[in-house]
């Protein structure tokens, strides 16, 4: 599973990244988590409101820092 966190590196993006990491750990999944900070790449997903969570190339959450629990549902 490939998880991507889209965002320019602001505080909210870091928080979402940490929550995603925690969700993966709690579920014991084998997943890679990437940070995408380049705007050109972020725009490929059509996301304008960062941070966003992408799971296997599909945008699941955007514009908010989701909790560990709600991220789990998308994994």
């Amino acid at each position, binding site marked *: 599973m490939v998880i991507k966190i889209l*965002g*320019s*590196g*602001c505080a*909210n*993006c870091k928080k979402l990244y940490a929550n995603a990491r925690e969700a993966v750990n709690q579920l014991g999944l084998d997943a890679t988590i990437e940070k995408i900070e380049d*705007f*050109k790449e*972020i*725009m*490929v*997903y*059509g*996301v*304008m*409101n*960062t941070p966003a969570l992408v799971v296997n190339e599909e*945008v699941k*959450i*955007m*514009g*908010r*820092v989701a*909790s560990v629990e*709600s991220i789990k549902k998308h994994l």
Partner: protein
Amino acid sequence: MFDWLDELIQLLVENVFNLDVTSHLGASVHFFIYDVIKIILLLGIMIFLISYIRSFFPPERTKKILERFSGAKGNLMASLLGIVTPFCSCSSVPIFIGFVEAGIPLGVTFSFLITSPIVNEAAFAILLASFGWKIAVAYVITGVIVGVVGGILIGKLKMENQVEDYVYRIKAGEVEIKQLSHKERIQFALQNVRDIIKRIWIFLIIGIGIGAVIHGLNEDGEVVRLLVQYAGKDNPIGVFIGVILGIPLYSNALGTIPIAEALIIKGVGIGTALAFMMAVTALSLPEMILLRKVIKPKLISAFVIITGIAIILVGYLFNSITHLLT
């Protein structure tokens, strides 16, 4: 609206601290406790309500709406949507690229980028707490006017060539806008309340503290006389200085508004305070650095100069109609 709190704190100050509220120290203590409780209360409630409404207007949806409008109507819609679309300065670049890529005119894009940060929930709540409804609403309306006028002027400058070339080459993907559940909206709103209060509480306490000291100053004392002379509504360069001071400051500086509240009671112009606030939110240095990734310095300067002048005019306008608003 908060008379009950006012009286409650008055009882506290007189009976528990044994201070006379008409004394300098008593007035300061009363102002401090009353303002801290009132502002935190209003901030919490307003941020929650506004964030909940905002969860219905992601920028992706705003973009779709704006694609249907052109000309000045587009500028007006962009400013109005700027009020309800959640905006954090770290999103300004993707929003800019998304709008331009969708063919939304540069001027319309700027109307959004100007109004969106000016009219934010924290600024609104603090104004409401410090100055009441009339001024908070007047602030929102002028925030829209500054955005519309600024955007139209920037559009007239035809500076499309001042956008970095790569922006035009980006092909943005389509994203499906997900419906949030009621629970997710509540969560989003609560998180906003936490984030904003965590970010500005220390500045608020300091601001209210300084405000409290000013509050206890003697009306005809030397300090008050100097303040009114320099920041009073009759000083023509007061607004100008307020705007210049506001540019390097970031939104945390909203915490300084209680200082303005205390100053205005002493006779400082309200337009000076509002212009300062708009400059703090609309013209922030960190945002300009971010925008530099997508637009060239000439367009950034045009944006700063046009928005700055518009804000200064708003300051003078409010100073001249202070009597209608208080």
